[in-house]
Structures are given as structure tokens and as C-alpha cells.
């Protein structure tokens, strides 16, 4: 079995299996936990805070805006970039269509390539920022760096495969698929789980603050 056949077959199958087991394990394991009882009298109904919380964290809180705005913008740049690259590049749509039977129009290759480049630059800038700031460097752990690595690697290998730079196409495509497999395997066990948890986390925080009658 050559590397590409391994990547397209057993590697992705194992990765998807681990991804599903791990994701549902962590999601239900956390969401089904018993909440801490709050014996105080609520200032107002808490439920609205669940929605306010989603909105409030979309943009920096004004007093801190000047200090965190760069991180927000870079974060938006690479998140939107990843959405474009992952969901609007034709080979990726074919992958999804093959798995789930749904498809949608693709963006031109040149557009996706350009967005991929911007995404990569934003991710590199955020890593440099993390390393340059003594506080973020101090509080960063293996999870932060490895999560960055498994996010960047599929992007880099994918762009190399498209450009056919560095190795033969089938090798680059295999490395790309293997890097995706690594991302899927790491996903449930590291900080990538924020993709699922951020909604619950913002809702919980928003409800706590709403109940207390404070700003989300």
C-alpha cells in the first residue's frame, strides 16, 4: 500500500473514528455535568444572557479594545480564511459531497489560493505575537503550540500540493490528507474543541452575568 492509498483509506477512517468518539465523549461529558447551584435571587431572567453572550464577545470590550484589537482582527482573518479554504475549494467540496451527499458552488482556485496565503500569514503573525509577548509566552503550553501546528500543517501541505512544490503531487496530497487526519485526531483532546464549546461557554458566561444584572 502506498502512502496516498494509506492516507485516503485507513488513515482517514481511523482519524474520523477517533474524532467522533472523542468529540461526543467530551461534549456530553461536559454538557451533562451537574451545574453549580446559585442560591442568590436573580436580578433578571438569565436566559437572554445566553444570546447576549454570543454577540458580546464578537468584538472587543471597549476599555480593552486598543490592546486586543490586533488579536481579534488576526483571529477573524484566519478563521474566515479557513472557512473559505475548507468549504469553498472544489476538491474539498467533492470530499464533503462524497461523505454527506451535499454540495455547493466552489470559488475559483485563484481566489482560494489568495485567501490561503492571507490565512497562513495571519496564523504566523499570531504565533509571533504569542512568542513576543512575555505574558502570553509564559501562559502558553504544549496544547497551544500543537493546536497551532495541526491547524497550519494542512494549510501548508495543501498549498504545496496545489502548487506542486517540494515533492511529487501524490506525495504532497498524501501528506496533506495525513495532516488532516492528525488534526482530526487531536481535535477533541485539545483547544480545537472550542469550535464546539465556544457557544456553550459564551451562553453560560452570558447567563451568569445576566442573572447578576451585569454586562456580559
Amino acid at each position, binding site marked *: *500500500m*502506498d502512502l*496516498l*492509498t494509506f492516507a*485516503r*483509506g*485507513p488513515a*482517514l*477512517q481511523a482519524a*474520523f*473514528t*477517533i474524532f*467522533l*468518539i*472523542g*468529540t*461526543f*465523549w*467530551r*461534549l*456530553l*461529558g*461536559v*454538557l*451533562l*455535568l*451537574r451545574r453549580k*447551584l446559585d442560591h442568590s435571587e436573580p436580578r433578571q431572567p438569565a436566559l437572554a444572557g445566553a444570546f447576549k453572550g454570543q454577540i458580546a464577545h464578537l468584538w472587543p470590550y471597549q476599555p480593552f479594545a486598543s490592546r486586543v484589537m490586533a488579536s481579534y482582527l488576526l483571529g477573524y482573518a484566519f478563521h474566515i480564511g479557513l472557512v473559505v479554504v475548507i468549504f469553498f475549494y*472544489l*476538491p*474539498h467540496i*467533492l*470530499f464533503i459531497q*462524497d*461523505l454527506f451527499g451535499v454540495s455547493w458552488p*466552489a470559488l*475559483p*482556485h485563484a481566489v482560494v489560493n489568495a485567501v490561503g496565503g492571507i490565512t497562513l500569514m495571519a496564523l504566523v503573525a499570531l504565533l509571533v505575537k504569542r512568542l513576543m509577548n512575555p505574558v502570553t509566552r509564559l501562559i502558553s503550553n504544549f496544547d497551544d503550540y500543537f493546536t497551532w501546528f495541526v491547524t497550519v500543517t494542512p494549510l501548508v501541505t495543501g498549498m504545496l500540493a496545489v502548487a*506542486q512544490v517540494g515533492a511529487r*503531487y*501524490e506525495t504532497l*496530497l498524501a501528506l496533506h*490528507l495525513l495532516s488532516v487526519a492528525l488534526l482530526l485526531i487531536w481535535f477533541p483532546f485539545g483547544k480545537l474543541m472550542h469550535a464546539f464549546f465556544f457557544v456553550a461557554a459564551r451562553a453560560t458566561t452570558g447567563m451568569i452575568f445576566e442573572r447578576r444584572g451585569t454586562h456580559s
Partner: protein
Amino acid sequence: MTEETLGECLSRHGISRRSFLKFCTVTASLMALPPGAAAQMAEALARQRRPSVIWLSFQECTGCTESLTRSYAPSLESLIFDFISLDYHHTLSAAAGHQVEAALDKAIADNHGNYLVIVDGSIPLGAKGAYSTVAGVSNVESLKRVAEGAAAVIAVGTCAAYGGLPMAQPNPTGAVGVSELVKDKPVVNVPGCPPIPEVMTGVLAHFLTFGSLPELDVHGRPLAFFGDSIHNRCYRRPFYDQGKFAKRFDDAGARAGWCLYELGCKGPTTYNACATVKWNQGLTFPIQSGHGCIGCSEPNFWDKGSFYKPLSTAESIAGGGMIAATTVGVALGAGAAWISRKRQDDIVGGK
């Protein structure tokens, strides 16, 4: 090796010097040889005495022989068989039975150390080689015996090169390619199902001209013909870059000749000269005829998944397996939460 030179042989066949030079120029340019190589090739080939060639046919369909002998006759490619002294070939020999086996013995004895061996078909190792025998001798024994005195071995077709179709899972005969068995002689793979005639003649011309085999890639194929992918050389490539794809074999995109990537074309991962040399005297090749490349010149092409699934899709992600994985994940998560709650109950009585 016969006394007649190739030049004399060609004259006898009425092939003009001009036609011969044209053949050498085309062959040299196909192999990306330096500008002076065509003249060097013409001179060397014309002076060359016809080398003995022993052709062994094993587990095969005779498609390779068909391809190489049925090139648009009477072309110079078909006359390559006059450039060489084809002393033994199951399909083409006029003799049969013990007479043809005697010809094999004589060719080995007379040209020991100098003859070329061309193999088409895979070699079965299962049941002590009993799945395929010639004159009561297993293919594996024949190959070992004949290759022992060879100058070089050329594995023609994907079966001889990498095991091909007979080696496809579950490989009932234990088939292998030539290079799995011949380790002490130069082996050139000319894969394809079937291989392109011009590639075969190019390899022979190179050997006769320079006395050595051409530069090979990682899979033992001549780089001159297998150095670039079908995709990179495909005339439909601009449609890929423009995002114009046929979605079905009978839709407007297919009729307009758009890229066949979405229909499972394996051109991006297949290395061969089909898109440049083409078939039937440069008339067409599979993609030009409307079907995607199936990757037939790559090792294990038969076991690399569906011919009709795009390369960017995953193979064998079973829906049942994914449902099972989800169920396991849900059970683990619910179990973990239940244990946590139970511990809370044990500690503070659920308050």
C-alpha cells in the same frame, strides 16, 4: 547476435535514410536527449548488429504484444522488431513445442551475457509457481534461468513491472513483478496497460545507442517518458485551472471537453507519456476520448479505490463505522458525566 547491421536490415526493408533519421530525431526528442543525440543515435543504430532478444510471456493477456506489434503498420516502431533478433516469443514464433524451446536454449548459449530479456506478464509464486508454466517449467524458474545470462531485463506492461491485474487483491496466484525477483541485473519498467509502443522503442534505441539503460524514476521507469504527470501535460488542464469540470459523462461539460477530475480522473497522480506521445500514431489517448485516466502505469493501480471517485475524496469511510464511533462517544460522554454526578452525590449528597 546476427551479422547483419541494422542499417543493412533497414535498407533491405526499403526504409530510406531520411525516414530513419526522422525516427531517430523523434525518439531522441521524446526522450529529451541533447540536440546531437539524434545523429549519434542514427549512426550507432545503423552500425549496430542486431542484439538477441528473448521475450518471456507470463501471466498476461497479450495486450502488451498487441500494442507493440499493432502500432500503425508499417511504421518504424513496428520494424523495431527487425532492429533486434527476436529469438524467442511465444505469440510471434513460427515454431512451437520443443523446437521453440530449443531456440531459447540456443539463444541463451550463443549470446550469454549480452542478450536482452523482455518480460510481459506477472510471475506467480503461489503453489510453487504452478499457476503458470511453459513447457512444464514454472514462470519463476524460467525467469531466473533466462535472466541469469541477460545484459538487462525490460519489464513491459504493468503486470511485468509491478504485478498488475493478477496481483490485485486478493492476489490468488501470489503474483509479483520482475523487479521483485531479478535483483542482480538492470531492470527497466515500461508500465502501462498496455504500454505505449514508442516508449518501448525509445528504451531499446537508447540501449542500442549508448549501451546503457536510460535514467529511471523511483518506480524504475524511464524518466524521459514518465517524468511528468498526465495532468500536467493534459490538453484539458486549462479547464481544471479555470474550474470547468464535467459532472457526468454525458453532460454539456463532457461534450465541451472540460476536465474530468470530478469523474475520478487519476491524471494528477499518474506518470506516463499518454498525453504527449498518445496512441495510434499520435491520434488520441483515453482522456481525449472522453474517459478519465485510470492510472494504469502506476504500481497497484487496481487496488487504489474506485476509478470514478475524485482523487480528493476518502476511500472506505463506512457510514456504519461512523455511527458506531458516534455511539461509543455518546456512551463514554454520558458515562463520564454519570460518574462525575455520582461522585458529587457521594461527597455532598447531591447538593
